[in-house]
Every structure is written in C-alpha cells, then in structure tokens.
C-alpha cells in the first residue's frame, strides 16, 4: 500500500515553530485562502476549481430514469467521488480508502442532506419519470484542503448546469435536445460551502485552507458547512485532540465570512461565463423560464 510519506521530524518542527511565531510557510495570514480560481467548461455543468495547487473537477450530467418507488415525487441526485492516482500516488484505483469515504460523506451531508438541490423539481411524471442528476467529483491534484475545493466545485457546477427542457402531454414526455430548446437551470435552495479549520497546539493556532504539509502536521480539523445566510448545514470534528467548545463557535463565525467570500467568487464567475455565452444578447428571449405574465 503506497502511502503519502510523512514529513520528517525536522520539517514538522519547522512548520510548527513557524506557526508559533505566527508565520505560515507560504507567507499567508492564518485565515487567508490560497488563490481560488474557478473556471467553467464549454459544456454546461463542468467546473474546475483550483485552490493553490489543489485542483478538483466536477461534471454534472442528467438522464431520465424511473424514480424510486418510495419517493415518487422526487428526482434522484447522486454524488460520486473519485480519488485516483492522478491526484497523488497515495490514492489507489478501485480501493475506497478512508479519505474518499469521508469526503463523499461530507459532500453528501453538505449538499444532499441539507436540501441544497430541490429534488422535487426534477420530477417529470410522478412515479414514472424523473431526472437523475449525477455529479462526478474528480480530484486532479492534491495539495491539501480537498474538502473545501470539492464542495466549491460541486456547488459551482450545480449552479452552472442546465438540464434539458421537457414537455408533458398526458403520459407522453418530450425531452428537448440542447439545440432545440434552451436548457433550464437547476433549482438550488441555498449554496452551502465547506470550510475546514485546522488546529494546532490544542486550538491555539487555527488555520484556514491548510496545504498538504500543514495538514500532515496538524493535530486535528473541524469541517463546517455553512451558507451565506448563516445556516450551518453540517459540522464534523471527528475525534482528534480536544478543543474548547467556544473555539468551535469562533470557527463557525469565521467560516461564515469565508463562505460569503466563496459565494461571491462563484457568483462573479457565473456572471462572467453567462456574459460570454450570451452572444448577441439573445439569451433572455431563449430562456424557457423567462418572465411570464403574472395572472
């Protein structure tokens, strides 16, 4: 089993003693993120996020399927995560390791359980046809903080994605191709973001967006998912050395600020992308959900 090599004792000491003097190795402030870069692909629903050297790509796809028998009015939304050797030699193909399970659980709790995507809007005919939205999360480069990066990419991709338009006549369903009709945005209820806080020295030092080296040296982490309205969707502090109850509350406050920051990044990039696609300003007329007359 190849494992990520642990940093040597000297390296670890160096990182820790620098942190005790309020210095991070890359010169950032403790709560500062590395450069967050978000790019969308040619197709709808492809997002590529880079935070420093960490890179995550998410692709959303939709197909028409039969809904689950016990959830007739809901569409299906699945998230699949993949950590392949492309990201780091520590990851193996086909073997689910701890990191992957935790990551997929985290995304599941953050996006699915918090009801970020309105699955009822994916229903076409109750009990017979619905959309199955599938999100594939691929970690391409691993330099720490994949939780935040994957969550950001997933939310951005969901907001960017358009599903094909459908028309229902009784029992007949027509699904229009992307060329026939302008596809429709997914209904998002809120946009949660994961913010990981790494702590050292029993909570004395708190870092945001830790790099891989910092992650290997940290004592533990608190992962908080929060949206810009200040609703906490998930908190996970899986063991690790104990910290004050109060510092967890401080973490949530800081996470809210960061979530607002990420939210702005996504909004700005989406707008930019929309402008690029809106050749000749025809988009407003093509949209199926354009303003209807209020009656």
């Amino acid at each position, binding site marked *: *089993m190849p494992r990520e090599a642990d940093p040597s004792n000297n390296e670890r000491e160096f990182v820790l003693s620098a942190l005790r003097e309020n210095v991070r190795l890359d010169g950032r402030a403790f709560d500062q993120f590395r450069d967050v870069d978000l790019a969308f692909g040619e197709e709808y629903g492809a997002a590529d996020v880079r935070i420093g050297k960490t890179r995550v790509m998410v692709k959303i796809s939709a197909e028409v399927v039969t809904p689950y028998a016990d959830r007739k009015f809901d569409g299906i939304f699945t998230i699949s995560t993949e950590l392949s050797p492309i990201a780091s030699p520590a990851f193996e193909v086909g073997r689910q390791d*701890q990191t992957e*399970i*935790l990551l*997929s*659980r985290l995304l*599941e*709790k953050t996006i699915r*359980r*918090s*009801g970020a995507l309105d699955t009822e809007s994916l229903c076409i005919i109750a009990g017979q046809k619905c959309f199955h939205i599938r999100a594939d999360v691929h970690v391409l480069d691993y330099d720490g903080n994949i939780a935040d990066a994957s969550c950001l990419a997933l939310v951005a991709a969901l907001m960017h994605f358009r599903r094909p338009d459908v028309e229902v006549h009784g029992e007949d369903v027509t699904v229009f191709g992307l060329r026939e009709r302008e596809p429709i945005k997914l209904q998002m209820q809120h946009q949660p973001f994961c913010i990981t806080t790494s702590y050292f020295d029993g909570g004395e030092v708190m870092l945001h967006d830790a790099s891989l080296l910092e992650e290997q040296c940290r004592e*533990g982490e*608190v992962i908080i998912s*929060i949206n810009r309205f*200040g*609703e*906490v*969707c*998930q*908190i*996970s*502090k*899986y*063991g*690790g*050395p*104990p*910290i*004050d*109850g*109060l510092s*967890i*509350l401080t973490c*949530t*406050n800081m996470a*809210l600020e960061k979530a607002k920051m990420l939210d702005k990044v996504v909004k700005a990039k989406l707008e930019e992308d929309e402008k690029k696609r809106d050749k000749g300003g025809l988009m407003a007329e093509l949209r199926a959900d354009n303003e209807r007359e209020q009656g």
Partner: protein
Amino acid sequence: MPLDSSTYALAHLRVDGRRWKELRRIHGQMSTQAAADGSSYFEMGNTKIICTVLGPRQPTKSGGRDQSREAIIEVEIGVAGFSGMDRKKRSRNDKRTQEMQYTISSAFASTVFTSQYPHSTITIVLHVLSQDGALLAACINAATLALIDAGVPMQDYIAACTTGSTASYASNDEDADPLLDLNGMEELELPFLTMGTSGGEDKVNVLVMETRIQMPRLEAMVSVGLDGCKQVRNILDGIVREHGKKLLSSR
C-alpha cells in the same frame, strides 16, 4: 410519521414526558463478557449497546504495520437487523457506519496513551442491539467503559450525548429551547448534534452535526451539550466506581 412537536410550547414537556434538560435513563455494566479483555453493556434510554475490547495485542493483519510507534485503534460496528423500527440489513461497508467507526477510533486515538503500546492494535467491537437515537453517543460511552474494563491507560473518559433544538430550521422563532438527549423520534424531526467531551472542563473531542440549523441556535445547543456531557461523565464514573467496589469485595 412526523413527530407532533406542536404541544411542546404549551406544557414544555417532550413526547416522552421529559423536560428540556433531562437525560434518559442511563444504565451501564462492565465486564459482561468473560472472553474479551474488556467489555461493557450500555443503555441510553432504549438505545442498547454491547461493547467488547480486544487487546492491546499483536496486529492480526500482517504486513507493513509493524513499524508503528503507537497502537492502532480499530473499531467495528455491527448493527443488528432487529435493532431499528423496521428490519433493515445494514452492511458492514455502509458509509455511515464507516464514518462512525472512523470517528470513534480517532476520538480514542487521542485519549488513549497509544504510545505505550507500539506495534499493537486495540480492537473495539460494538454491537448495536437496539436503536432509539443517540447512536454515536451511546457507542462512545460504551467504548469508554469497555476500555476502562480492559485496563487500557487513558487520559480521561470520553462522555458523549446529543442535543437538539425544538423548532426546525425553517421557523425563525426566537424562543426555541435547546433539548438534551433526543430520542429516536425527536432525532428524525429536529436538528441535533452529537458531542463528546473529556475532562471536567469544556473540552470537546467529538462534535458531529448532520442537520441544518441557524448559527445563533448553535451556541445554546453547544452549552447544553457540554452540561449534558458532564452529567453523563458523572454517571459513567459512578458505574466504574461501583464495578471497582464489587471487584474488590469479591476478592
């Protein structure tokens, strides 16, 4: 079936007749299985757990592990098919179970003096006999008792409990009460978090929340949780002391 919590505002009594700050009945026993190095039986209301601890012992799986400088804590959770309301088989590789296993193992990895046992493993096996909320909390408490019974040196107990909040996240009502130790029905309906603390002070080892809640609500929940964990810790301490007395008198 959704829980009818509308009457709470009238009498401030919960579905099972408790007030907001009351724990359910906690019952624990130690040394229940003779074959294991340490074992315990733990009840938190209707959630019932048997825990056995094997080790510290030589790692059973060979290969590459021998160089470890500290003991590895393995956790296995078996959820009995008859434990819930409907008979459902939960596989061992279920992601939720695996997440719980990871949580418990990393919580104890920082509390047990693992450096005392290089090249060895401590296996915690948890059997869930009956579930009625606070599953993770009950597992942590049962594991604490079993580890103490096994004589594994630890810094402190990890005592865990859950806290919730009366109103769901949607309604913005100001006078929402925090609730201590939710039962299974309340857990389905209300936002809640599981918390595990060690030491007399407010040191949080484990904090897991899976439901959506407004941030201001969190503070009350955490402080009620800290208080609840302290109560649980005292109860655990009582169980351990009683067991110790029994052992001494039987000599």
